[in-house]
């Protein structure tokens, strides 16, 4: 179990850029990917903004959008890792995907037909596109992956759960290489639900701001390719970061309200597995949804874990730019963390105007920060009180 696991490939499809280079440029420039929702008519809805990926052409019309987003980011990660796409079959490669809503858009089409014209109108051709287990199967089919194949629908922390499990599977010798990440297509159902919880901001996501008004529903996919350090060195791969460990916890408290004790527990487990003292963390990538409750609870957890050091620790939320990409969020944030470690730059929290004394953290306001970044934590929380925190470290040969 003492295998060291490294990230050697990054793939991302997002509202601010596709592919790690465009994504990173937009991220450190503080670009917003939020726009008026165009995938369905929002008249009659209380809010109208979200983080849709415009100009994304699904490569396979026989699959849903969430699968297509995942396939695109998976291919980007493989190519980025310097591996030929037709060369995976023999590599004992598997894939773990996290999601919140799965192929929600497919189900919404089925529901539209059902409501308008009854069960007769349901298109049988659409049915096999829906069940969320197809997400990882579709990626495996497109990339010819014969290894472990797994979908974790752990809502908005699912990406971190996926990366954590992939890390365990390689350490246990169940796969040589894993693609792991998350995907979600823009979901009308999620948009309705968060609106009904009064959790959606009218136009801007402002994590940690005193006047923050909520989250914004978004879509996208993030994927990392991971392998053992030994394998990466052997093939001369570019190593972004080493995965030191992760921590999971469940609040066992409330379905929708975040809770600082559970968040704290996941962070502490990640630190303990990584054998990293809390004050050695250089950057904390927050869940930071921009809802009053999340940011308050998350900052409280940060203060409890880091004590006085919490005043110095840079904590930012890229959801200020992307909105909340649901099951993809923590995977896209993991991509950002790997790039942060690689480039020694911390992406900012944009839309920040007024400090909230209840938060009391350094949220890297509005402008990216160049500084040495050796160790990062990527924290995520989800409905059901499911928390997951991932620890990454700069790899020095």
């Amino acid at each position, binding site marked *: *179990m003492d295998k060291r696991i490294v990230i050697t490939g990054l793939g991302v499809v997002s509202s601010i850029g596709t592919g790690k280079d465009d994504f990173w440029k937009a991220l450190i420039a503080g670009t917003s990917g939020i726009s008026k929702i165009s995938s369905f008519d929002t008249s*009659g*809805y*209380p809010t109208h903004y979200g983080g849709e990926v415009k100009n994304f052409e699904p490569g396979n019309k026989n699959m849903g959008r969430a699968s297509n987003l995942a396939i695109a980011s998976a291919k980007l990660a493989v190519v980025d890792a310097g591996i030929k796409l037709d060369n995976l079959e023999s590599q004992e490669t598997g894939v773990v995907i996290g*999601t*919140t809503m799965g192929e929600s858009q497919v*189900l*919404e089409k089925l*529901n539209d037909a*059902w*409501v308008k014209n009854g*069960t007769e109108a*349901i298109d*049988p051709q659409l*049915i*096999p596109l*829906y*069940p*969320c*287990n197809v997400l*990882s*199967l579709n990626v*495996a089919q497109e990339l010819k*992956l014969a290894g*472990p*194949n*797994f*979908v*974790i*629908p*752990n*809502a908005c922390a699912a990406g971190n759960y996926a990366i954590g*499990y992939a890390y*365990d*599977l390689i350490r*246990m*010798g169940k796969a040589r290489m894993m693609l792991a990440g998350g995907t979600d297509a823009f979901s*009308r*159902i999620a948009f*309705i*639900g*968060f609106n*009904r*919880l009064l959790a959606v901001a009218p136009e801007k996501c402002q994590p940690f701001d005193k006047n923050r008004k909520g989250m914004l529903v978004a879509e996208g996919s993030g994927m990392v390719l991971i392998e053992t350090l030994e394998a990466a060195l052997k093939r001369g791969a570019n190593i972004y970061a080493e995965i030191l460990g992760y921590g*999971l*916890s*469940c*609040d*066992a*408290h*409330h*379905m*929708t309200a975040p809770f600082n004790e*559970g968040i704290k*527990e996941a962070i502490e487990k990640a630190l303990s597995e990584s054998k990293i003292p809390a004050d050695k963390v250089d950057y904390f990538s927050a869940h930071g949804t921009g809802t009053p409750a999340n940011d308050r609870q998350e900052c409280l957890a940060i203060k409890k874990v880091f004590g006085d050091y919490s005043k110095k620790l840079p904590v930012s939320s890229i959801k200020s730019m992307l909105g909340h990409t649901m099951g993809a969020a923590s995977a896209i944030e993991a991509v950002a963390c790997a790039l942060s470690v690689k480039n020694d730059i911390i992406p900012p929290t944009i839309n920040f105007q007024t400090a909230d004394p209840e938060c009391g953290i350094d949220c890297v306001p509005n402008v990216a920060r160049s500084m040495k970044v050796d160790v990062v934590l990527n924290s995520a929380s*989800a*409905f*059901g*009180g*499911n928390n997951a925190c991932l620890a990454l470290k700069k790899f020095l040969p």
Partner: protein
Amino acid sequence: MSKKRIVITGLGVISSIGIGKYAFAENILKGISGIKPISTFDTTPFKAKLGAEISNFAPEVILGPKGLRTLDRSIKLVASAAKLALADAQLEITEANSRDTGIAIGTTFGSLASICDFDKEALTEGVRFVNPALFPNTVINSPASQVSIKFNIKGFNITVSTGFSASLDAINYALNALRNNRVKIALSGGVEEFCIQAFLGFYKSGCLSDSRGIVLGEGSGIIVLEELDSALARKAKIYAEVLGFGFAVQDLKKSMRLSLEEAGLAPEKIDYINSAANSSEEFNANEASAIAELFEKRVIAVSSIKPLVGELFSASGSLQVAAGISALESQVIPAKVFNNAQISKIENILINTAGRTGSNSSLIISKFKGY
């Protein structure tokens, strides 16, 4: 890696042939079927009219009457099974062990009815009139999360959606979490509820038939898994040891072979195979040939409980494990054996879960033989 020994010390079953492990085991042995005309919705427009619904399920009897109002059926099924499993294991979750206890649940359609009802209410009543209290039921991890909330399980909480193999994949996740010291105790299994949405999905895909095809069922099986030392220390009853797991995409022979490898068992050590067979002809033939190839000329006892409990999709594996435990206890093969294989003992059971396409998983559970 020194392999930790993981044992099963508790079982909770909610099925169409019985609530609780005794009723389930008894009716499995008697060969009583839970398949009846569907009552959840009007089947007049459909050619398939049968289902294995749980008609006598009264969650308030198991869970108490409080706090059930906004919970969907899947949540009530899995929470009930979890409660029975914890009681069976004589395990109390307290502040002392709560953070060392995790839960992994296999389900793919567990929240489907809730998701569709929520969306359809918005479409018919308008988005401003949907009941926000029902939104939490629309996430696929809500059944597992509600179990954590109800029973204070804080170590980890994960939902696995891998289609037909999800229960075994969830159990394997729990095994790995135990082996990697992430928790000391794990609840695992699966849940699916009977609903018109799942019925329509399978029906319109041409899978359902009352005579020559799949009949859908519902239910939940939950097992308590822990390290052998922990079980011995608290003098728990040990039902079985979990020896091996194997997974493959569309390759049941490979998943069986990998499970044997992990268990360190030769094929001839397997006494009985609890099959994934669900009357889908192409798929049954596929499993039969995979078994024939792996076990060569040996006639091995194979049976399926799906003629009794129906096809439970992602929850099937959880009831198959329950049936396997019952077979180890009673030394009688559950349900009707497909061939006339003679057996003298049941010590090692191989459980298969698979669908026509997608993930295949195999799990080996064995009679606990001590050190």
